[in-house]
């Protein structure tokens, strides 16, 4: 299980271009993501990393090119339907429902797997309640599997959580949608080394439990990029600069320049 050479492609992008008026935020980017694969995306600020995530999740509609999930075109599908098809995400600046409990946040992640509407809620309460209780039970199990500490805090308002737990909760909430592809936007931002290590362990555990889940991680923390992804894609000025294993990527001068600074890069090259 997990990633093998014959794993099928689950998500792919082709010629993705995104223009905002005259500004080209992304130009002809192509990528593939295989089942069970972890793809890291790096690049300096403004390179188009978040734009790519927003295109995949339907928040932006690309000016040209297309995104396909298991061969089906996603362009123009509204964001909330893309979630139902199996793409979940987290946000760089955590966007939890801060005034709701931790558990409620995860239950909201079950939205696409529950059906009760206004009519059911009022006139078929038993059915609606059973469905929601099942979602709550599912959410509890999920929280426990992602992080015991988080599970113990499940009745606290999400807004009161510490930074590291907020990230874990965002991941748990995204996992509650039962995704095929999970997109993490800078999961370690604002964390110290110890928190980042714990986060990496949690992500590994999540992947071990779900060998078919494909992950795309935008990251700046090179320790994470070096150890977690199978493959790394480099974006720069909205274009794809490179795509390969970390060992190859790190030798590219432009990457060294971006992450180590120009002088250090020259030094490393010499």
């Amino acid at each position: 299980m997990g990633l093998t050479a014959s794993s099928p492609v689950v998500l792919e992008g082709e010629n993705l271009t995104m223009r905002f008026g005259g500004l080209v935020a992304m130009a002809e980017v192509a990528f593939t993501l295989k089942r069970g694969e972890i793809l890291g995306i790096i690049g300096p600020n403004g390179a188009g990393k978040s734009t790519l995530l927003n295109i995949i999740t339907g928040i932006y509609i690309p000016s040209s090119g297309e995104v396909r999930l298991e061969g089906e075109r996603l362009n123009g599908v509204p964001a909330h339907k893309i979630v139902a098809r199996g793409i979940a995400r987290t946000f760089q600046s955590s966007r939890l429902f801060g005034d709701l409990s931790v558990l409620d946040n995860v239950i909201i992640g079950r939205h696409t797997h529950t059906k009760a509407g206004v009519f059911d809620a009022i006139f078929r309460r038993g059915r609606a309640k059973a469905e929601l209780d099942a979602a709550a039970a599912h959410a509890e199990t999920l929280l426990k599997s992602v992080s015991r500490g988080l599970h113990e805090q499940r009745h606290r308002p999400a807004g009161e959580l510490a930074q590291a737990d907020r990230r874990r909760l965002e991941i748990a909430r995204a996992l509650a949608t039962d995704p095929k592809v999970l997109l993490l936007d800078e999961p370690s931002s604002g964390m110290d080394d110890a928190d980042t290590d714990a986060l990496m362990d949690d992500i590994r555990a999540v992947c071990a439990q779900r060998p078919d889940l494909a992950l795309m991680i935008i990251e700046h923390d090179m320790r994470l990029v070096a150890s977690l992804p199978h493959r790394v894609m480099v974006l720069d000025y909205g274009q794809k600069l490179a795509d390969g294993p970390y060992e190859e990527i790190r030798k590219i001068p432009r990457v060294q320049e971006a992450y180590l600074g120009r002088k250090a890069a020259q030094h490393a090259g010499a």
Partner: protein
Amino acid sequence: MAESLALPRDTSNPVVSALTVIAVQLAGALFLRQFLLIDDWRLVIGLLLLFGAALVLMERVPSLEARVEAAFARHSRLALLLGIAIVLAFPFVLEGNTYALHLCVISMLYAVLALALNFQLGSANIPNFATGASYGIGAYASALLALNFGVSFWLALPVAAVVATIFGFLLGIPSMRTRDSYLALVTIAFGVVIHQLLNNLEFTGGPNGLVGIPAPELFGHSFASPLVIFGQELPSQANFYYLSALLVLISIVFARRLHDSRVGLAWNALRTDELAARCQGINVTWYKVLAFAVDAFLAGFAGTIYAFYVGFISPDNFTFLVSVTIMTMVIAGGMDNILGVIVGAFLLTLLPEKLRAFSDYRILFFGVTVIVFLMIRPQGLFPQRLRRYGH
């Protein structure tokens, strides 16, 4: 999953907590009775100070509030039955005071309107300034049916609610292209348009409104005649008292069931963060339009009862100011808290009536009172609570 309570567990003696429930409910009913019956302004101020003191106590000693809350959670059935008994018995202790009964009816209709708006403002944070307009649409729709086609109250009630809901959808759809302050502007415009239409259309009676709306009848008993129960004669307002109480009960059931459902969660999600809500698979546009429709549905009900209660409606009953008042009730009472919204509706309906002694300074005093209460409890009198599961 009994241990997964969000609230502190009530570990005290069950008898003590049951008595707490009974005492709190009776005290609340007694307070309302005295507040309705007294005329002397000094006593009014005294009662308001008492209410303020209770709020300060709740704010200063959260454990006390938590204890009362736990007692109610534990004895929810007792609380419900006693609550119903108090509501049923209440008209008998008002000494046949028709004005007090009238204020109860109006307060309850406003409670329904505030609960309706709470779906939007409280649950989903949609600033809808058109609840007064939906109220008016319900009132006019049912009155026109009764006057022109002889439709009975009981049939006009659901039809008017459906008409108001359709208008709610019509308002909801253009509103979805805007948000925040701009959304508020669209709803204000809608309210003004409805008011102007009612004022200028021929068939709505123009500024004179509609007169002579017949009182409802039930099993041959006209709602315009006194109500006799167990040999006790109650003024005719008592008919509408019980009718509005039933509507409040229905609204509470609606509100609770929706709040505790997937729909309520989706509304809460989009209230905090629309983008994050979309990325959990929530169709934000649909849920917002739905909130407009539910709001209009309940407001339409309230409008029908109002029209048949007073028998005469004019556009001035449904102005922009009515919408603002309803909004204040929700904010002051406590967003997304059913009890808070109802208390807010009663307080804001009764206060201006009880402050008549101050004549010219009435509205000023009213404003100051609301501000003071909100300074004591900035989150509203009864703030929002976290949900619990598995019970």
